[in-house]
């Protein structure tokens, strides 16, 4: 190149040089101010944020208390469940990740997207958003194998409730499932994704079973990787509980009720401990533990037999003739009944224009109290009802614990209904009719009782009049709620009549006879619908199922100082004797086993 350069060419542009210097000055000034602002002016605030950034609290789950049956058999345990979580912050491509997850696990892609969309608002970006609560081993292996290529996916090991006898205890134990919005709001101890007892004892004993979560504080990096543990508060495991329920008896009752709808209560008459409690039909509580699928749910809730309904607490039934045990007590207490006095039963009783029939068309002839109970004569009790009147009957019923919940440790217990004049006026705007006393007297009409109430009353008849709270826990002390207003002699009269009902060939409860034990019982048949004459003429098995009467049998058994009340109620079971009798008998056989021949004198 030529060295002859024109002189001005050697001069770099002057304004250009000035520009360079101004740029340097500008950068210096602007960044100095910014450093000052961030580090000095706002420094403390940012330092605080930095601290908050790196400290993360994590709950350490307390294992939920175990639940055992009376004999120590485990009914509810915890087992590891593998949940699939997605940490949004680490995930490069959510859509593709969800596609992959759907491929591996076979979960519906649209559903995953839905879960993700819902979870976004609730879960912090650095915390795992649970895509699936419950993965099988195959899926876990699949995810683990691909995890490295799909950052953000995490397998979380969580505890899942497992019910060893899911269908035997579903209504007693209820189940555990993920807490919903309102539960989260009302309970500080719960955080999103936690499980909580939804029904049954799991719900009632929630605080005892849950224990107290521990807390771990970590320093973490941005991926949530744990660096150093700062401090730890260990969890307190939930309390283990043992039920009063006898596993063998419960499964026996379950078998006896197979295919039937109804309730069975077996209660220790001295302590109130419930040895068996069944609402049939049942469902498998394990379906709910891992989150139930909507099909599964639909299947259960659309089942015409309503397995999800807990009949123990949620259903109250007309007691039918079982109520005659209460009527007898009421008559004796009010001194309006002389046990040896007889009443003539011609098979019906007329009141005004209305004819009230006895179930035995031909009539019972002359009956005293015992015979009226043994043979369940309606006319005898019609007359007694007329004498007593609604006010006395309802007052006595209330005093024996009817018309209100028994207080058993189960949620949402119903108390049934004992009608009164006021109630009738309030409910129907009509006054009480004399004729209604007669219906009341034989357990028809407005009266609704629960098998638990009946069991409690039966227990009171044989334990010295103590009305006990039915106890589901083995550790529970007997709790006397009140004393029924009957003295020993009066109780003995009713008890004796019940024993006769079993022992006498003409009694309705001959099925419940148990050699070696004193067994007493009373049947009941509760009308579900007023049958037209046309239907009445049909054979039992031809009556449409839903119109058939409910069958009751309420009884007790005593042997060697052990006393139990057993109540069986079979919906649409037609007759107490045939519908409920065999179940009572099965209970008695288990409670009072016969010494095999040749064994011990």
């Amino acid at each position, binding site marked *: *190149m030529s*060295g002859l*350069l024109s*002189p*001005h*060419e*050697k001069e*770099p*542009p002057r*304004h*250009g*040089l000035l*520009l*360079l*210097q101004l*740029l*340097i000055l500008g*950068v*210096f000034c*602007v*960044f*100095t101010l*910014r*450093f*000052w602002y*961030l*580090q*000095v002016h*706002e*420094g*403390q*605030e*940012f*330092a605080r*944020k*930095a*601290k908050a*950034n*790196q400290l993360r609290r994590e709950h350490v789950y307390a294992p939920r208390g175990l639940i055992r049956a009376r004999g120590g058999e485990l009914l509810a345990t915890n087992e590891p469940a593998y949940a699939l979580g997605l940490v*949004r*912050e680490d995930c490069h491509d959510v859509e593709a990740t969800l596609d992959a997850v759907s491929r591996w696990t076979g979960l519906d892609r649209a559903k995953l997207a839905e879960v993700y969309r819902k979870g976004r608002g609730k879960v912090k*970006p650095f915390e795992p958003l649970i895509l699936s609560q419950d993965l099988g081993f195959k899926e876990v292996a699949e995810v683990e194998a691909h995890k490295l290529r799909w950052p953000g996916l995490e397998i979380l090991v969580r505890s899942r409730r497992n019910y060893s006898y899911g269908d035997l205890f579903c209504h007693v134990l209820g189940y555990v499932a993920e807490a919903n919005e309102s539960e989260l709001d009302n309970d500080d101890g719960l955080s999103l994704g936690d499980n909580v007892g939804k029904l049954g004892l799991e719900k009632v004993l929630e605080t005892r079973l849950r224990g107290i979560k521990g807390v771990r504080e970590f*320093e*973490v*990096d*941005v*991926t949530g*990787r*744990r*660096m*150093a*543990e700062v401090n730890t508060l260990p969890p307190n495991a939930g309390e283990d509980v043992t039920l009063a329920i006898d596993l063998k008896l419960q499964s026996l009752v379950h078998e006896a009720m197979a295919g039937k709808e109804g309730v069975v209560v077996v209660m220790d008459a001295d302590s109130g401990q419930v040895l068996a409690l069944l609402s049939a039909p049942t469902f498998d509580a394990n379906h709910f533990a891992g989150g139930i699928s909507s099909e599964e749910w639909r299947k259960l809730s659309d089942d015409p037999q309503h397995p999800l309904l807990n009949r123990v607490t949620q259903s109250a039934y007309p007691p039918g003739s079982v109520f005659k045990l209460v009527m007898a007590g009421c008559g004796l207490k009010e001194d309006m009944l002389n046990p040896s006095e007889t009443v003539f039963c011609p098979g019906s009783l007329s009141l005004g224009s209305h004819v009230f029939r006895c179930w035995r068309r031909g009539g019972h002839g002359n009956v005293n109290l015992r015979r009226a109970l043994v043979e369940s004569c309606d006319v005898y009790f019609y007359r007694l009802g007329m004498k007593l009147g609604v006010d006395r009957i309802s007052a006595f019923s209330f005093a024996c614990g009817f018309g209100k919940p028994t207080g058993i440790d189960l949620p949402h217990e119903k108390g049934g209904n004992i009608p009164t004049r006021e109630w009738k006026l309030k409910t129907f705007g009509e006054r009480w009719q004399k004729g209604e006393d007669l219906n009341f007297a034989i357990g028809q009409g407005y009266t609704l009782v629960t098998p638990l109430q009946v069991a409690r009353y039966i227990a009171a008849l044989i334990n010295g009049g103590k009305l006990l709270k039915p106890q589901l826990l083995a550790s529970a002390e007997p709790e006397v709620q009140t004393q029924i207003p009957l003295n020993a002699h009066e109780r003995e009269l009713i008890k004796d009549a019940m024993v006769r009902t079993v022992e006498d060939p003409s009694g309705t409860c001959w099925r419940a006879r148990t050699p070696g034990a004193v067994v007493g019982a009373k049947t009941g048949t509760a009308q579900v619908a007023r049958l037209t004459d046309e239907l009445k003429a049909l054979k039992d098995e031809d009556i449409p199922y839903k119109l058939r009467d409910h069958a009751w049998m309420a009884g007790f058994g005593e042997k060697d100082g052990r006393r139990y009340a057993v109540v069986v109620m079979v919906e649409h079971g037609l007759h107490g004797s045939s519908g409920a009798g065999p179940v009572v008998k099965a209970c008695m056989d288990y409670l009072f086993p016969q010494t095999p021949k040749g064994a011990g004198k």
Partner: protein
Amino acid sequence: MDRKFLLSINWPLVGVTAVLFFLGVLNLYSASGFRMEEGLNVDPYFRKQLIWGLMGLPCMAVFMLVDYRHLKTAAWPLFWLTVVMLVAVFFFGKTIYGARRWIDLGFMHFQPSEMAKISVLILGARLLSRDTGKLDFLQLGGIFGVCCLPVILVIKQPDLGSGLSVFLILGGMILYRGLTSRVLRTLIVAVPATLPLAWFALHDYQKRRIVSFLNPESDPKGAGYHKLQSEIAVGSGELWGKGFLGGTQSHYRFLPEKHTDFALAVFSEEWGFVGSMVLLSLFCAFLYQIALVARDAKDLFGSYLAAGVFFYFFWQILINMGMVLGLMPVVGIPLPFLSYGGSATLVNFCLVGLVLNVSMRRFLFKKV
């Protein structure tokens, strides 16, 4: 001769460069450190960076010793070679994080986009120094037209950061030369008007970043996350800093890219306002030394080369610091000497060598 040679070296610039580089390595030691329960694990980044530095020295020497005026002849060939390389990347490039930017040379991943910066710089210096006086439309259009080719190729890689830097370096050099007031006025009107057009050429994630910069709180855990975390890191250093290796933000990896684009945040967190000011002053001194070389260059080509190098560093410092301090959107532009990067370190050394080259030869044709 030796003494004369040694004397002719611009020692202040060498000194500032050396200090910056070693601060960078020191900072990398901390930034790539990873605190685990068993103590600090250090990724080998700082060691690699040192090696890059050592590899950079001979490159620097070459750029320093070969008379820079030869570059005038080499300008066009270099430029076309770069274009070929950029096209080659599309076919043989190695894809990392969804962008094809690298050519695998076996011993390193070479980024042609780095080469584009240098060759455009040299070509620009040649074209601009042909003439004096302010640029009119025709000259401006010609220069930009030529340089558009590599820029578009780079942005499509996609590497928005590098693409913009090539443009900015050239733009800086043009400003250094000066524009006629008419051109200037037109540009002030026209450039904002064409921005929407450029918008459509961007990739989605690039758009997202710009949107989130304009409204970072809208998505604190999304694209605005980087900015927030970076501000927290810098701010929490307060006046004196948390001390060497004491940066929690960086060690706990709340900071993304802490050894590359956000290396400054680590530095500021650990050394506080005081340290940050020292670093800022060093960068300004560094730039000032280059500006002096541009002033004292013995010919216009050298002056423009120095100015080009000035802008090469200036924009990176401005954009990276602005990004780390939350004043600018997050674009992947490294901070010279502080950010880890093989190609970038080599290029930095080469360009400093080029400035030293211009600086050394300012005496050769001294005017009397």
